[in-house]
């Protein structure tokens, strides 16, 4: 396997690992209504870089699944689509957060052989 192929394979694995995490991160930030670019900045400020090409379609997908609600805001410099978490999204966020905490706990045990404190 060449170095390029190895890089590609690692990238794929990393993307796979991150896919679910990004959904959780996005849902957690949507109590306030946000537009796409604003959310990207918000996540980046906290250390999570998400590509535009990933995030914009994701917002739309979550809206289709009923986890987010959206509204076009026409009063600003340009029309912007604002997203906010829906009641269903809140329930899913709570369940996903529990799942995430359990996963961290278990993975810590698996990777380091001890309970996460």
């Amino acid at each position: 396997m060449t170095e390029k192929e190895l890089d590609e394979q690692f990238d794929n694995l990393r993307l796979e690992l991150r896919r679910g995490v990004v959904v959780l991160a996005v849902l957690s930030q949507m109590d306030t209504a946000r537009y796409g670019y604003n959310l990207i900045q918000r996540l980046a400020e906290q250390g999570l870089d998400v590509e535009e090409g990933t995030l914009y379609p994701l917002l739309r997908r979550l809206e289709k699944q009923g986890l987010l609600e959206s509204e076009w805001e026409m009063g600003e410099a340009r029309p912007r689509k604002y997203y906010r978490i829906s009641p269903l999204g809140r329930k899913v966020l709570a369940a996903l957060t529990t799942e995430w905490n359990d996963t961290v706990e278990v993975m810590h045990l698996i990777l380091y052989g001890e309970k996460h404190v």
Partner: protein
Amino acid sequence: MSELVERYIHQVGRYLPSKERAEIQAELRSQIQDQLDDRYEGAPTEANVAEVLKELGDPRRMAASYGGEQYLVGPDLYPVMMMVLRRGWVIVPPIAILVHLLAVVFGDESGTLISLLLTAAGGAFQATAIFTGIVVLIFAILQHSGEDLDEITGSDKGFDPLALPEVDDPAEVDRFESILSMAFGTFALLVMLYFLRVGGLTLRFNLNDPGDVIPVPIPWLVALIAIGTTQMVLQLTALLRGRWGVALWLVNVALDIVGAVTLYYVLWLPLAGQLFAAVPALLNVPFLGRGAQIILAISIIAAVLEGATKLVKMAGYRHSGPSSYNVKAS
């Protein structure tokens, strides 16, 4: 809005399902603008815009990530495929029945009326099934070959925003038109190869028993197959490049004209010959007596007109400049 941004959004839109296209494009436009404003405070150079677009990635991939699940033929192509199929289902069976009946009328095949009708219907059914199979296959290949095609055409070197085609460029390939003509082209080519095998016109699609064959001059048939194949290659080249160049288009129009002449010798002349041999009185009917020549003239005129119209549009086309804000020259 920067003209380059519009070109990008236009390209993304080409691969989106029509139902959602306008909204996704509007959202994408405002998101790109937000990003440009934030980074360059409203005065981005063209190079800046290109950089932001490059981060967004190839328009086709961008559109695909809005698409969700994968299908044999995805939601963006499915309506187009059904449109092609519906047209084909209307056109193919009557042609198949007509050619079959012509062969029966002018040949010496005997049998009861019912058995003749049954074989005609069988031929029509076979032709329609073959046509449907070819169309679905072409669409499935188009749906799933996106990235491989990129590699073949050399566009895997990375996406270059500055090379995005213009909006409303008359040289831009109309995907529907292109797929439609490729589907019909493939079908017609297979039929021609079958004619070549059995030595003439018949639509029974049975190699062992082609029924009564209307003989056609074989060199002209070979020429027609060669022209058809070349035009399919041209069509595919244009589809992969995304646009027709002047040279490519000229070759295509020239082939249209030569093809019309070839079709005259392969199809119209033999059919007219059979018709007049069976019913000589028809020769004296005005226009009908010269029917084959009239069809030839009309197809040549149509090819020249279509070719010239597009050439004039390509020559006269200048893209409009940026509208809502200015992009500084880089």
